[in-house]
């Protein structure tokens, strides 16, 4: 089976789905001739032409707004926002429109689209190139939020997103783009949205992570009997898998790189408190970014959760 990195896996998903479904068109800044700043869309212009691979003006709200219009018309647009930190001008389009056309029109119109954005810290890029604001989108009823943690799930999740009838925010951890190589098959396979996966079974503690933190969690916790849950879809998240694992281990650590306050860990912790407090032996702990803007390269490792912090949280919980 071919071994691929995440860039290649996402490119392959786009290519195969575009061949299968002529509703799919790509639009964004530099996605055409340049193949995207991370080369995710490399070669697609040559295969599908300017009609379907659309270089746009530099206008994030316009890109998402146009994608909304295309989706309303019956296409399946994939809008690329060059870095997640540039998506803020498009919040209005996502929250006021993409997420709401279906309910606003009581199902008469809908907005099937995918917004792809590279995200997360650790690539020595300038300010606003390393944001992890995934929780904002989880607070928008009407959009789904998906975060792959490696090449195999990236392809399968993107295929599911491209077949979903509703808007999907697809966040690609930049730190992992070329870090992990694994077997990624050609052809059709879907990793379903809304389902977490147990990456490693264990019995002492449940550690929940997603995106770029998953790789750190897995590496950091090798000596522990930890059950590691890769959330994959943040909204709607797989409560069943999370709660089953919590019931089994009685201890929970949530790891995310976004700032702690109102990060997605807060929702997980609240749900666990509401649903499973009687099976807990100790507090739900969060290992998260501090409540500061993500710093530039020289200080970023003081921001990102690292092995020491992840292990310390697990050690603390194991005392209960």
């Amino acid at each position, binding site marked *: 089976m071919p071994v691929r990195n995440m860039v290649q896996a996402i490119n392959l998903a786009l290519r195969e789905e575009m061949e299968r479904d002529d509703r799919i068109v790509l639009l964004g800044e530099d996605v055409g001739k340049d193949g995207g700043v991370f080369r995710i869309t490399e070669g697609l212009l040559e295969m599908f032409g300017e009609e379907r691979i659309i270089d746009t003006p530099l206008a994030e709200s316009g890109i998402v707004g146009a994608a909304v219009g295309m989706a309303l018309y019956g296409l399946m647009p994939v809008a690329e926002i060059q870095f997640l930190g540039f998506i803020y001008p498009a919040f209005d389009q996502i929250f006021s429109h993409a997420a709401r056309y279906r309910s606003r029109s009581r199902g*008469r119109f809908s907005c099937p689209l995918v917004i792809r954005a590279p995200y997360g810290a650790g690539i020595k890029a300038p300010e606003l190139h390393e944001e992890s604001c995934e929780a904002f989108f989880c607070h928008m009823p009407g959009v789904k939020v998906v975060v792959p943690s490696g090449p195999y799930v990236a392809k399968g999740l993107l295929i599911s997103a491209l077949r979903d009838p*509703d808007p999907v925010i697809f966040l690609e951890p930049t730190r992992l783009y070329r870090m992990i190589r694994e077997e990624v098959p050609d052809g059709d396979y879907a990793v379903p949205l809304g389902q977490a996966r147990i990456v490693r079974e264990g019995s002492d503690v449940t550690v929940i992570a997603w995106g770029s933190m998953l790789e750190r969690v897995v590496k950091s916790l090798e000596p522990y009997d930890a059950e590691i849950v890769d959330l994959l879809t943040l909204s709607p998240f797989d409560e*069943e898998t999370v709660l089953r694992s919590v019931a089994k281990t009685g201890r929970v650590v949530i790891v995310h790189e976004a700032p702690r306050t109102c990060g997605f860990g807060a929702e997980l912790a609240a749900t666990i408190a509401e649903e499973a407090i009687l099976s807990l032996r100790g507090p739900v702990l969060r290992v998260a970014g501090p409540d500061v803007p993500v710093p530039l390269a020289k200080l970023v490792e003081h921001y990102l959760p690292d092995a020491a912090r992840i292990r310390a949280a697990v050690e603390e919980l194991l005392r209960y």
Partner: protein
Amino acid sequence: MPRSVIETFPVTRLDILDAEGNADETLLPPLSREDTLRLYELLVLSRAFDGRALSLQREGRIGTYPSILGQEAAQVGSAFALEKSDWVFPSFRETGMHVAMGYPLDLLFRYWAGDERGLVTPEGLNILPVCVSVGTHIPHAVGAAMAARYRKDPIAVVAYFGDGATSKGDFHEGFNMAGVYRLPVVFICQNNQWAISVPRGRQTAAATIAQKAIAYGFEGVQVDGNDVFAVYDATRQALERARSGGGPTFIECFTYRISHHTTADDADRYRSVDEVEEWKKRDPIERLRRFLEKRGFWTVEYQRELEHRTRDTIDQAVREAESAAPAERREIFLSVFEKRTPRQIREMEGGADAGA
């Protein structure tokens, strides 16, 4: 090196029918007697809907409502040029367009009474839901036009918005993309001179709103928005251009909001009664009536019969709206996603706190 003029840009304005009902015969659009009477009846129906909506609001039977009083020609005249297959992206003050396109009036009453089911556009019409967030639907029209071109559908897309919307970023981003891709889209600005309390002069220092199109590489034209023939003709030509690959057009309908911003507003706080009285003299419906009378198409009996017919239509729409089955709690969950999430299912089936 000489200093030279490298570009000059004319801005045109179209006037066909004056306030006394006199028309420039050389500019009159090709409308039959039946068409012209139909236009008149749609204007009268739009105003009647508006008047009824205002009284229903005062009686507490509908919620906040934005009046179109004075803007009927700008809305009806432009919509009259559209085909049913065209896609229309309205703002929240486009009742005249809805009336002219044949959108069911009972649905409009229901929407303004706070029932989302009023935005379920009937099959066969491509009118998108009312956009409350000012100007943010302009890029949607652009995207729909991109999709129509990709599908090779011979349609045009129209976006309606007001003078306030021309200050928004999405106006710029949408117009810019429409120009870059030469899309089959027509932008119709209802310049009614007021964005709630902020006058047109505070929206832009530009001499006209129409000229903003120039910077995006396509034509902008100002029309007398109270002249239904001028609005109709400019829209007809813009649609022809769009359908024949000539790209977008921007039409500024120079008109006036006679009423308050909405039923929740008091315009006397910020503008003079004299200004409003001046604009009332340029009433779009009265001038068409005078035109029809001069042509011998209008009589007192016809007017009486029309008003009677119009009242029946409105009465019937109100009856239908108010006798619709009440919306149920579960409906708020049904259309967020195509399929409910597990949490939504629990929220739908249980009480408000059954979400966890």
